């Protein structure tokens, strides 16, 4: 399994030592705290990453919080939503992106691919897979979406739980590879892209299928992730113009999301424990009117345009 351990403790030198030891070896740590160079990655990635002065150790806990694009897409599938091509990104533009912008667009294409696949639109899914492969090769990730693996996924297309498991695994592998190779700035952008596109798609579907009110749960979930994204980008707004702009867009979006009318059917979540089974009932629901959907979309659009502009 590709996933490696990652201590997610609140900032602590001890946990950092522990995670370093896993791959650096004790001698290197003791000899002046030197760590070996990460495996070779394209030169431009290091240049791009060097623009970011971020203590990643403090933020890695947030990088794994968001659901994978596949999880969101399968949720949409559970709700039996239709497939709409118009709101999706243009897969033919994949070749124009690189560096950090490419990583954000990789997150967008992964989400579009997962959505197309989850709604059984295999031809568009293949087009997005091509876009994903094109971008993934820039980050030495192409083996994760190899033809053999895609064949395995296709064979399981009528077993959503199996597809979910495999795709979640592949997405996790991407996260781990980017972390291990010191490309956390890329990972951050990829997660942003996936989150952004999931929210964009959900809002678009809600506009077309307003009777699917349970989709508002997706919006509530995406709303709960905004503070984490803000923390990820607040870390380097003083050093990076891109982070400053993304932070500004996210702040405006958060302000709008805070105005969503939340209906509380109970004062607070109810937790029931029996033996070792825990059930938690959440009474929160959000009622999204067309006006509110439009308002959130209008705040989301500038961020999406900033990321997909060529």
């Amino acid at each position, binding site marked *: 399994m590709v996933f490696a351990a*990652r201590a*997610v403790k609140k900032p602590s030198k*001890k946990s950092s030592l*522990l995670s370093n030891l896993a791959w650096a070896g004790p001698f290197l740590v*003791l000899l002046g705290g030197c760590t070996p160079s990460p495996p070779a990655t394209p030169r431009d990635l290091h240049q791009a990453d060097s623009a970011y002065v971020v203590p990643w150790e403090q933020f890695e806990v947030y990088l794994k919080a968001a659901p994978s694009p596949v999880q969101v897409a399968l949720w949409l599938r559970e709700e039996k939503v239709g497939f709409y091509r118009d709101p999706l990104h243009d897969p033919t533009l994949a070749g124009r992106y690189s560096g950090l912008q490419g990583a954000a667009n990789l997150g967008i294409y992964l989400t579009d691919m997962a959505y197309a696949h989850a709604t059984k639109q295999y031809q568009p899914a293949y087009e997005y897979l091509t876009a994903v492969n094109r971008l993934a090769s820039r980050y030495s990730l192409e083996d994760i979406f190899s033809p053999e693996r895609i064949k395995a996924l296709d064979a399981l297309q009528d077993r959503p739980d199996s597809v979910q*498991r495999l795709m979640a695994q592949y997405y996790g592998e991407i996260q781990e590879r980017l972390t291990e190779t010191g490309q956390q700035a890329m990972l951050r952008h990829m997660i942003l892209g996936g989150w952004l596109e999931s929210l964009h798609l959900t809002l678009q579907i809600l506009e077309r299928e307003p009777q699917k009110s349970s989709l508002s749960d997706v919006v509530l979930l995406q709303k709960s992730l905004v503070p984490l994204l803000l923390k990820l980008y607040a870390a380097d707004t003083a050093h990076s113009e891109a982070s400053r702009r993304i932070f500004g867009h996210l702040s405006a979006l958060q302000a709008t999301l805070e105005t969503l009318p939340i209906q509380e059917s109970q004062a607070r979540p109810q937790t029931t*424990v029996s033996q*070792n089974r825990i059930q*938690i009932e*959440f009474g929160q629901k959000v009622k999204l009117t067309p006006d509110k959907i439009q308002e959130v979309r209008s705040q989301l659009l500038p961020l999406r345009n900033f990321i997909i502009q060529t």
Partner: protein
Amino acid sequence: MSRLLGLIFLASLPPLFAQQRCKGLIPACRDAYMGDLNWDGRYWRAELFGSETTEIYYTFFRGLKYRLIPCGRSSTQATPHLRIYNANRVLLLDTRTQGEKPFWDLELSNTQLLIIEVYYPSGHGCVALLIGHGPSEIAQAQD
């Protein structure tokens, strides 16, 4: 020079053993408690000292059953416990109030981002958390 290297080697052994010990938690807990649930191979691990805790942010989906397996034993033989919070940091459960259990099965009425804090009530040592998932028993019963 060789003495210096020897000293460095000896000094490096305790953390190396600690690391190996921490690594060993994962397969042991998986084999003992994961059962037939799905596991995507992800786990979280930390070495806790004093009253330190380790946090995990994780999105849990409605319609799935999750198994939370906290692994490890502290220097005082305490077992690890979990505090489960919602995204707004409202405490939903501290498993210490529910006695000692090797794992906890969790189901939610709505998909949510939760924060899970893993801690030892006393002592220090390695701790790990594995999260497996499978079909919801509640949903199956309703079907």
